[in-house]
């Protein structure tokens, strides 16, 4: 095929994975490698930021404090002033992990690294990562609701008309599904679009698309963490305390 003769920089591979064998389990090596890099970046950045904390922040500490306050803002807006503090680490880690994953995936020329199969890319462009994160969010909001309101949390399923019960149950499935596929789809689509543009016009032209990609990446991280915080907040808020108001959702 003619397109196959393009240099490897411009080739596109989708759905190929660099498999590692763990016992009788298979894992996607390329996803794990990049996720380790992402985790490393985050850990090193936090270590540098908190190594020499000062009351009057300067330089990098300032930057990280800005990031932290941004994250706190997300958690506070969605969860409420009363409970947001304990959820800041979870929501914040979600945001940072997804954001750094997306940006590293978009900014680092991973194609220069040759793997036997598949290629390095943002971990969030692999469905395993996004489903893992989405399931953690589900667990988190169940935990939050249960911890805050005990068995009363489940009263929302049986409240009101029994007709609504299946809808409530379905919602618990659609939440992680939409979370994971939104992130996965956006990041993968972005990588594909950039890849296609690079394939067609290797110079300059892909740049706007890449910048747009960076923008979407940031937005997706924001959306994921905001929705996660909002689910957690919703679970804790409880419908029992506001029976007069309608069931929303």
């Amino acid at each position, binding site marked *: *095929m003619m*397109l*196959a003769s*393009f240099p490897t920089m411009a*080739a*596109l591979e*989708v*759905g*190929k*994975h660099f*498999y590692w064998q*763990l016992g009788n*389990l*298979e*894992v*996607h090596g390329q*996803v*794990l490698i990049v*996720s*380790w890099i992402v*985790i490393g970046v*985050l*850990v090193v950045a*936090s*270590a540098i*930021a*908190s190594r020499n*904390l*000062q*009351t*009057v*922040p300067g330089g990098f*500490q300032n930057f*990280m*404090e800005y990031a*932290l*306050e941004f994250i*706190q803002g997300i958690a506070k807006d969605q969860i409420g002033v009363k409970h947001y*503090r304990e959820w*800041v*680490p*979870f929501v*914040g*880690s979600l945001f*940072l*992990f997804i954001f750094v994953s997306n940006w590293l995936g978009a900014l680092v020329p991973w194609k220069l690294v040759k793997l036997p199969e598949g290629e390095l890319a943002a*971990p969030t462009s*692999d*469905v*395993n*990562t996004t*489903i*893992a*994160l989405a*399931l*953690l969010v589900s667990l988190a909001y169940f935990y939050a609701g249960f911890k805050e309101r005990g068995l009363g949390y489940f009263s929302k399923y049986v409240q009101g008309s029994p007709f609504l019960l299946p809808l409530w149950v379905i919602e618990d499935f659609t939440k992680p599904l939409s979370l994971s596929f939104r992130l996965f789809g956006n990041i993968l689509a972005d990588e*594909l679009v950039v*890849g*296609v543009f690079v*394939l067609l016009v290797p110079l300059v032209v892909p740049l706007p698309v890449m910048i747009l990609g960076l923008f979407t990446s940031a937005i997706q991280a924001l959306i994921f963490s905001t929705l996660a915080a909002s689910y957690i907040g919703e679970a804790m808020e409880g419908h029992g305390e506001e029976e007069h108001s309608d069931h929303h959702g």
Partner: protein
Amino acid sequence: MMDEILGLSSTRWVLLAAEAEGKGGLFDVDATLPIMAIQFLILVAILNELFFKPLMKVIDEREQAVRSGISEAKDRLSKAKSMAENYEKQLAQTRRDIQELIASVQAEANRIRNQQIADALSEAQVHVQNAKAEIEQQKQEASTALDQQVTSLSRQILVKILGDLAQVS
């Protein structure tokens, strides 16, 4: 498989080359998922210790410091205001006192001046009276002296005339 539904597999396209020979494909969920979940939880734990806790603590401390600084500054401001007010009041009081003092001193001075003028006037009158009396006295003396001289002169004249008369006769 899901990717077959989406028409992604078995097309050896460069754009969407989803290799589907038994394994692979876009929606290949395997052990990566639980590993990623555990990894992420570990990341949350690490970031909590390394990033969120210390930075939130620092931010809280700073907020506290700023808040206490503001309240301290407010205290100081109110203190300064009350001091300024106090000072104003004292100033006004002092001004009033001084005006009173000036008024009383002026009155005193006026009194003393009038007194002295009156004294001087009366003294002058005394002097004038004395002088007048002396003049009168001297006039008196002079007139008596004159009278005496007139008497002696007239006696001499008389003697002379009478002497001459005697000689003649």
